[in-house]
């Protein structure tokens, strides 16, 4: 890995620009780790991108798959990676060799936005800033396992783990292993869990008769009874666990190397999770700063304006079939900047009914800059949109929802209503658009694994569900069950339990699990 750390110095011209842009970025209040730029060839760029920015990762075919796709689309002129930056301290950023100077300047300005975001956003606060080293260590561990237990065996197990790597808790920062020891199964229930003596069911009696009616023997009997009840009721985990990978690591019957591989997959899934849950904000923030630095701070030369505009608009063009995170993030940050500059917030503003007045609202608050820095610190995409998406913004940005119309065999615009748009956006961002699945009970039917899908109106894809259950079985080694809902013939959703018992799948109607407290 040393070869990747020994960075070739930038050519002098780029180095001068880097110093200038860095100074401007710092002057604007951006706060970033030291950022190291390197110019790489397209092939190297594709390679680094295939490894998600970390050339030090463990050997696995899926990186080869990503590489083939990148290399082919580059070869046929369909796509090109301009920039790549990783969340480490120091930050490493890669520039594509042969790009024009204006591109490189734009990318550098953009990168400082990302670096600031990595350093200051809450959701990144617990990510491992030495990830290059960590991943290299993980890789050498996996290589060692491959030497010891066979390439295919380890690779196969990695595939099984990867098939479950979306079963983590996306809306919680990574918790390292040792802080959660209390999850270990407890052999006996301590007394305090049974409740105070006063809550034992007592026979009704006048106060002076109490000690004769509710005798100690009787109370002991009651206490024993409750204890028995609690024991039979006891589930493990006591409340459902969304970090399924963590639960499996702690409780599944694995060999040491398998547990370590699972931990590596989980660690990496958690490391990359904030990049997915803050995609809109992160890109928006970087775009906000690259436009600002390029156009308002004199970095852009007059002769480069057309090229810059072409590049910038290519990146931030709206798309009818999906949300372009660059655009949405940029526009939303601009909107917030503008609103807080004009004081378009607070009770007076929200209670104002006159559209014209709202339109012209300007208290001269000039809070915009403070606000956007605050926003970039606290939010992720979900809360960002929940809090700052406004009806005016949606209308101005011409946002709409679309659906599949099977009869017309077309995608069609469904609605331009604010509530609908916001609802759809939020539901897509919740849990990264992944189904929420939690471990409900690992003592089910004497040690079988019961998972619960928190159903929110969209079915699971059966073609994927069954093989995934099979993979879960490979880890748990006893039958696994998943409760979910499925449309029956009349179009109603029925609660079902899908089981894989080691040889075959079965699906049975099942009473919905009680919601957890």
């Amino acid at each position: 890995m040393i070869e990747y750390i020994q960075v070739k110095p930038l050519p002098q011209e780029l180095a001068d620009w880097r110093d200038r842009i860095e100074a401007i970025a710092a002057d604007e209040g951006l706060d970033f780790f030291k950022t190291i730029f390197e110019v790489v060839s397209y092939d190297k760029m594709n390679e680094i991108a295939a490894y998600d920015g970390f050339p030090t990762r463990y050997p696995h075919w899926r990186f080869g798959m990503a590489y083939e796709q990148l290399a082919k689309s580059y070869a046929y002129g369909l796509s090109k990676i301009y920039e790549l930056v990783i969340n480490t301290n120091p930050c490493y950023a890669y520039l594509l060799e042969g790009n024009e100077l204006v591109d490189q300047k734009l990318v550098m300005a953009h990168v400082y936005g990302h670096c600031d975001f990595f350093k200051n956003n809450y959701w990144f606060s617990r990510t491992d800033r030495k990830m290059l080293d960590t991943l290299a260590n993980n890789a050498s561990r996996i290589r060692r396992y491959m030497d010891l237990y066979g390439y295919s065996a380890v690779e196969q197990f990695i595939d099984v783990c990867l098939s479950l790597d979306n079963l983590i808790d996306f809306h919680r920062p990574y918790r390292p292993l040792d802080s959660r020891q209390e999850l270990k199964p407890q052999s006996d229930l301590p007394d305090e869990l049974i409740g105070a003596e006063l809550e034992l069911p007592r026979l009704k009696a006048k106060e002076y008769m109490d000690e004769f009616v509710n005798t100690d023997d009787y109370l002991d009997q009651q206490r024993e009874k409750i204890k028995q009840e609690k024991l039979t009721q006891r589930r493990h985990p006591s409340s459902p666990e969304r970090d399924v990978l963590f639960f499996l690591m702690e409780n599944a019957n694995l060999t040491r190397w398998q547990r370590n591989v699972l931990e590596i997959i989980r660690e990496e899934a958690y490391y990359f999770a904030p990049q997915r849950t803050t995609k809109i904000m992160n890109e928006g923030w970087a775009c906000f700063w690259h436009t600002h630095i390029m156009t308002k701070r004199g970095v852009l030369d007059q002769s480069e304006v057309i090229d810059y505009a072409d590049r910038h608009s290519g990146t931030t063009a709206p798309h009818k079939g999906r949300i372009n995170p660059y655009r949405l993030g940029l526009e939303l940050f601009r909107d917030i900047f503008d609103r807080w500059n004009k004081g378009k917030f607070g009770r007076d503003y929200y209670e104002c009914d006159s559209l014209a007045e709202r339109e012209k609202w300007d208290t001269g608050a000039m809070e915009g800059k403070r606000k956007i820095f605050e926003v970039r610190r606290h939010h992720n995409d979900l809360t960002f949109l929940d809090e700052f998406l406004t009806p005016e913004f949606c209308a101005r940005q011409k946002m709409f929802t679309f659906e599949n119309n099977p009869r017309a065999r077309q995608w069609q615009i469904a609605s331009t209503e604010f509530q609908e748009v916001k609802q759809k956006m939020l539901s897509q961002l919740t849990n990264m658009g992944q189904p929420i699945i939690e471990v409900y009970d690992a003592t089910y039917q004497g040690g079988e694994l019961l998972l619960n899908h928190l159903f929110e109106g969209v079915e699971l894809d059966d073609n994927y569900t069954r093989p995934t259950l099979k993979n879960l079985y490979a880890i748990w080694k006893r039958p696994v069950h998943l409760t979910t809902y499925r449309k029956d013939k009349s179009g109603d959703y029925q609660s079902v339990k899908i089981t894989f018992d080691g040889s075959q799948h079965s699906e049975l109607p099942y009473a919905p699990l009680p919601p957890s407290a």
Partner: protein
Amino acid sequence: MSRIKQDHSRFRDIVRGKVRDNLKKYISKGELMGKQGGKAVKIPIPQIDLPRFRFSTQDGGGVGQGEGQPGDSLGSNKGQPGEEPGEGEAGQNDGEKALEVEVNIEELAEILGEALELPKIEPKGGTSIVAQKDKYTSIRSVGPDSLKHFKRTYKQALKRTISMGQFNPSAPIILPIKDDMRYRSWSTSSVPQSNAVVIYMMDVSGSMGEAQKEIVRIESFWINTWLKSQYKGIETRYIIHDASAKEVDEHTFFHTRESGGTMISSAYNLAWDIIKSDYPPSDWNIYPFHFSDGDNWSSDDTRDCISLLREHIIPASNQFSYGQVESHYGSGQFLRDLNKHFALDDQDCTLVCSEIKNKEGIVDSIKEFLGGGR
């Protein structure tokens, strides 16, 4: 070998089915469709999609941005919403498994070969069929006066005069001496001569409808593409037949609609005549392809066909390929007859038969035809 190369070759091995059979069911092949004459071609990018718990996409939908009112279309639900037709984009979303790009024929053949893992063909006749051709494109300093190159001679003389300092711009007289003389000369170039011929035969009797012909059209386009990449030059001949056979040009081959009965032997006879007169089998790589719905007129005719194939055509050809296109009207009897008379499963049998049920079957059928590397 760099790390990514290792991971990439591991991935290719999995895709090719060399290792990790258990992943095979997750590989999506992508498409391999090209419009003949059209430029847009889909490049398959194999992907392995590991199973994960995920939402069924049918009732999906999403949020977009742009002009439009509720009810406006965003394009066919077969593709991605909002995608302009023909717009190429790398597949980032699930389900997008192919790139749509414009490529030239050589690249296409390469892609085809790679996608279908076609073996390279060992040509017969080999190197001998390279024509030596002389062209007067060279220059020498000796030669007959009739080949004197005045311009080059003058230039040479001018150069010499200037470098000797004898040039006088006011009286620019150049006197060439013997060393300045330049004569035209020849250079020899070897031009590979075509030594492969593909003879396409198609049944155009009434039972072959448009859909069947479309299949033949696509399939023969790909076959041509592949064979062209394997031989320096290649000739194609086209025969159509119903109850009688005739040789036609490419356009007619693909666009005729005849009707009437079917005598397959007529086509085989004509093909054999062509081979005999134009393509001595010792020097030529001969690839007859015959497409039909398998409905022959009579069993007598089938018998004739079998004996023609057995005695003449198959021994002369590298490989005889018979593709049977499924049609509503055809009985498909001919394939069964061939099966009866030839040991098709035999490794050395150069008769290859393939049943093409529909357009999706084309890829497999091409593989059957060309997979033998003959």
